């Protein structure tokens, strides 16, 4: 079982790579475009995939941040299975869950609490955003680029783990009835 490890490759000078994971390609493409529009001192690379494990490739740079984009109106079984292929060291601040589609309540087949529980289990931050609205997408892209820079070590004095402890929510999500 091939597993994605955070430290198995050497970092490239001034490069930061993020891996976006989601079944919906169009959404990822839009998010990637928004992220690349941001002004950033580091050289950004965005990798898009539907699920893990990734096909083996020597040319792939070290992944600094993994963002799992979950749409509430499709099943997230894909995300759960992909999580098995991520090394546990990634969960020290280098993984983030991004949820979209919460606005259209009638279309939601996954409850928000389910995703909140997932994020809590993996001790990773959970962001909510409606990716279809351009302004919201630009805002979350800004946050993700900042997180990416920190996780790649480009911000002196702050590491991914520091950021994680700052972003941790105070209590676990309420139990499902």
């Amino acid at each position, binding site marked *: 079982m091939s597993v994605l490890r955070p430290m198995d490759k050497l970092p490239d000078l001034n490069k930061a790579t993020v891996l976006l994971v989601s079944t919906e*390609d169009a959404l990822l493409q839009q998010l990637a475009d928004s992220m690349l529009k941001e002004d950033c001192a580091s050289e950004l*690379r965005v990798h*898009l995939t539907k699920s893990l494990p990734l096909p083996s490739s020597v040319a792939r740079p070290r992944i600094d941040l993994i963002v799992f984009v979950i749409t509430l109106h*499709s099943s997230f079984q894909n995300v759960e299975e992909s999580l098995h292929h991520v090394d546990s060291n990634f969960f020290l601040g280098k993984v983030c869950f991004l949820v979209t589609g919460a606005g259209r309540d009638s279309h939601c087949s996954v409850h928000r609490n389910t995703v909140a529980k997932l994020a809590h289990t993996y001790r990773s931050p959970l962001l909510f955003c409606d990716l279809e609205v351009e302004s919201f997408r630009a805002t979350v892209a800004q946050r993700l680029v900042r997180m990416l820079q920190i996780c790649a070590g480009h911000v002196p004095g702050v590491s991914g783990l520091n950021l994680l402890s700052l972003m941790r929510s105070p209590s676990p999500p309420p139990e499902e009835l």
Partner: protein
Amino acid sequence: MDETVAEFIRRTILKIPVCEMMTILKTWNFLSESQLQTVNFRQRKESLAQDLLLLCEEKCATVQDMALLDIVYTQVHRHQKLWNVFQMSKGPDEDVDLFDMEQFKISFKKILQRALKNVTVSFRDAEKNAVWIRVAWGTQYSKPNQYKPTFVVYYSQTPYAFTSSSYLKSTLPLLKQALTIASQHHQIVQMDLRSRHLDSLQAIVFKEYNQIFENHNPTPPLQERSLGLDKNMDLRIIHENTLEKERIQRVTQEAFGDYPQPQLEFAQYKLETKFKSDLGRSILANRDEPFRCLIKFSSPHLLEALKSLAPAGIADAPLSPLLTCIPSKGMNYFKIRDK
């Protein structure tokens, strides 16, 4: 001119959008060029309708002329009706008789008039050996209701007829009988195919939807297209799963082809199968009776929507054959039972 005829023509004219008015009136071919030139088409519709009615009065429009206008209007606005498809067949030993359109029309009209004294039957020939038939139904004692007619499009060289859904269900057997006998067939069966788009139904039934026409600039081979080699694509974005994407494109193309899909609005699946559950014990699982369930897919363009499901990542490729077989089987209403 009869009161009912005048009122019907007036209402039909009011239904026609102003931009189509001239075309429809010219196709109707009842009012002459010179008469039409005397009318001001830029005035309010009510006044326009009055003027046109006066002209129709001068020419003494009859019920048949009125019916013809209705046919022309429906031909232009065919998507306002829901069309059903009927397939006729001859008996096994019957010879193929030469088809005579005039004989068909006379026979069809006679059968209906013999059964119901009051019925208005009108015909209008169309291209590809087709004839549009309009039937307004009455009873032995009441005049035909001109506002709820049934339209039939019959392709004489084929065993297929398309009818608009009628509010009057009781008239269907008689219509079927008239069609069958007049066209010298033996049996008629309603296909499980319905849509508002008559042209798409015809394309499906005559198997014309999968014709790919060669044009000057043939589309680039699948490989290039699916990888989306676009000069504008940002090189900082890398797609990890190109192999998978190519596979999905290939599978989708095999299932749906390269051609534009015929337009249907829904597909309905009536399930009468036993409930199967992986969870073992479940209230619904251990029953002998089938679990009845109706699943309906609707879309303005159902087949194109299904075709884009796998590439969009919403469904796995290959799609269920129950979805992909719709045009080839010519059905969009399915009954699924346990084998």
